């Protein structure tokens, strides 16, 4: 079943079109990588999926709820972590998780927080203010927050950007386990092509606000005559026209 259905999504700022007729779906149990060079429209897309940016046209349906008309119900089934949206540094880890858990109306919140603190190795920072944690620890808190409500759709914008390789691997494993339950789908942006190949079931390459390529990250480079996903990425960034279908 589909957890995210994006149809003909468009965002224009005056004469500039940031996202141009974007359509894709994410199924339960699927991790989809949203890739593309800076300015391709990835963050604009994610902001529209989060309901903080109004599309100029098109529709977004999250777990069967239309984001435009059933905003709260749709966002109850969503959560996100982004490197540019850290949790308030003046609250402790537990306070942050309790605050956001209440916003997402998580039932059995205390037990859920305890479980996430254990899962992400944060129990010893329970009463530490987030602002004094290392960037890697802050990222783990953000990901714990993103999983508070066991969302049907998890949006992760460069979730491992500030993590050391060992911690990044643990985070990827935790997210894979979460998705393996078959209840959730993930949209994952990253500039780390090794990570994308490792974790994503499918990738969408964006350029100029459109999806240029859609496929399996392990076979897509060969399909386009490239040796690796990184090489394909560079081609998308520099010569997108050469790949247009």
């Amino acid at each position, binding site marked *: 079943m589909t957890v995210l259905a994006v149809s003909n999504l468009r965002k224009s*700022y005056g004469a500039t079109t940031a996202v141009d007729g974007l359509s894709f779906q994410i199924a339960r149990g699927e991790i989809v990588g949203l890739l593309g060079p800076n300015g391709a429209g990835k*963050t*604009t897309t994610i*902001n529209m999926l*989060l*309901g*903080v*940016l*109004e599309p100029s046209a098109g529709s977004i349906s999250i777990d069967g709820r239309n984001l435009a008309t059933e*905003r*709260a*119900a749709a*966002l*109850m089934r*969503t959560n*996100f972590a*982004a*490197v*540019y*949206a*850290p*949790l*308030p*540094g*003046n*609250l*402790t880890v537990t*306070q942050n998780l*309790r*605050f*956001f858990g*209440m*916003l*997402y*109306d998580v039932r059995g919140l205390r037990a859920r927080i305890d479980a996430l603190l254990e899962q992400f190795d944060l129990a010893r920072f329970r009463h530490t203010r987030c602002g004094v944690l290392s960037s890697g620890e802050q990222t783990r808190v953000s990901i714990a*927050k993103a999983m508070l409500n066991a969302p049907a759709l998890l949006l992760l914008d460069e979730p491992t950007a500030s993590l050391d390789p060992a911690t990044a691997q643990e985070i990827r494993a935790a997210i894979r386990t979460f998705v393996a339950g078959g209840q959730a789908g993930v949209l994952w942006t990253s500039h780390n092509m090794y990570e994308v190949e490792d974790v994503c079931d499918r990738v969408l390459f964006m350029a100029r606000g459109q999806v240029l390529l859609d496929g399996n990250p392990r076979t897509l480079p060969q399909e386009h005559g490239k040796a690796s996903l990184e090489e394909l990425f560079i081609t998308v960034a520099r010569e997108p026209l050469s790949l247009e279908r």
Partner: protein
Amino acid sequence: MRMHPRRTFAIALRQLYLVRGSVSRLLPMFGWVAVDIVLWGFITRYLNTVASPGFSFVPVLLGAVLMWDFFTRVMQGVTMAFFEDVWSRNFLNIFASPLSIPEYLAGLVLSSIATSAIGLTVMLLLASFVFGLSMLTYGGSLALFVMVLFIFGIALGIVGCALVLRLGPSAEWFVWPIPSMVSPFVGVFYPLSTLPSWMQVVSRALPPSYVFEGMRAIVHGGRAAPHSLALGGALAVLYVFGACVLFARVYRQAVRTGLIARYSAESVS
């Protein structure tokens, strides 16, 4: 739209966490109002020594200062809770959650009720026990005075939040002086008849004017005109409604232009 009390309570709880863990947030809630009461308390004591016998400045000046400080605290209670999200660049996390605008505003109001109640209690204790102010002087009208000032404080607080949301974090400097800009028009310390006629026109549109005129009428042995207080109350409710509409419009515009997302991203751009 159904309001979800748990989300509203979360906003107030967040404020409680912040205040509880920070002397710099806790102290201003009662420190500045205490200084104000002490200062005006001594001024009224001095004025009582030079005034005609039988007339007390305590209910006239100190009572007015107390009520005005309460109004200011209510307004700042709303804006401070909002500024916490501005300062911690938390808009993206907050507004990407299921929290609705009415729930968010109700949370700011709840935060303000808690913080302004602390300030009011401190002021009442100081003014009563140190300077002999009896709020019973104002009789049953006191509850109405407090209510009108509270509602108008909430309205101006929400307008301040809308300004900062629309114009950016630096616009908070427009918000701090709002009470000082309003005070000359509402006659905190003097009758409205003292003002030039054009200022009196503005005064009639401001709910606190009716409160302070009513307080003066009681102190001078009369009573607060019920229709004036009703008008002040109705105006205050109208202002709150208008402020909520303004905030909702500014928010809608911010979502349309992407300002909400940029508010968070400013620090990394």
